């Protein structure tokens, strides 16, 4: 049996600040979502801006 990449043999960690309470895994997913969303808007798309090919 292959072990998990992370040690899961403990209670889940959570981010707790005043009323805000969320598991670390959920916080990581939300941050990843924001990063990928920003990249999807800002990152250049392959071929975009290439000069238009002339019709033969």
């Amino acid at each position, binding site marked *: 049996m292959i072990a998990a990449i992370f040690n899961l043999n403990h209670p889940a960690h959570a981010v707790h600040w005043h009323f805000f309470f969320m598991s670390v895994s959920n916080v990581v997913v939300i941050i*990843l*979502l924001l990063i990928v*969303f920003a990249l*999807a*808007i800002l990152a250049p798309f392959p*071929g*975009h801006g290439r000069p*238009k*090919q002339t019709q*033969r």
Partner: protein
Amino acid sequence: MSSGRKSWTGAVRDRAVAVLPPEKLLPDSQPAYMSSWIYVFGVLSLVSLVLIIGSGMILLLQGPDWWHTSSIGHFFNSIHMWSVELFFFFMVIHLWGKYWMAAWRGGRRRVWITGAVAFVVAVPCALTGYVSQQNFDSQWISTQAKDAMNAAGIGSFFNLMNFGQMYSYHVLLLPLAVVALVAAHIILVRKHGIVPPFNLSKSVAPATNGTPSNGSPVGPRATPGPAARPGPRFVPVPAQRPDPVPVPEVPAGREVPAVPEVPAGRDVPAGREVPAEPVL
């Protein structure tokens, strides 16, 4: 034996082709504004859904004993679970992108509604999968979710601790609903075209009916396309400027009459404008 009347199958076919002609259903080129990564996440969600259904059908054939005890079962169980994670990840980014793009523009309300409802229906589809795992994790989730359903007042309609019931919901009823909604969503996207981005450049025509900035259907329809056309896959779509107001030319030797002025102290009657152009 031709009676001259068209059969109902022919009438349905003609209607279907008129509503969604083949070149719109399966276009061979896309508008230039789609050359952005934000337009990729819809099809990524679709690919994830295909993976979910494929791996889920394999799990369905073998059952919990197999996916918990064999290496191949673990593999397909993991493929199924991570496909769901990616499905929701891509769907959320797709949703954010379309929300900030106001993708309901240009008569695309039904496209937006079917996408949003598919997202909402996919949530219980995933939940019933988590409670169908047949392990300690599913027991914990089902007891917690049962309390949540009871607190919401809908706990009498279904029992989250009933494996058979949850498994039926997960492998039949809810997937059927999700697939039907996604199919309707895609057909509507093909019918109305991909929503264009907002027009932020002042050098392009202002938003009027028929320009890309107001979300009019300029998608596949605007891309001329013989299948064998060389060149880039993304075809630039020129901004459709509104037709300019024709300014009549003054014949030679004829004077242009002066613009009639409104006498001082007299208002222009309501509904009547002082002509900006010389009236010939």
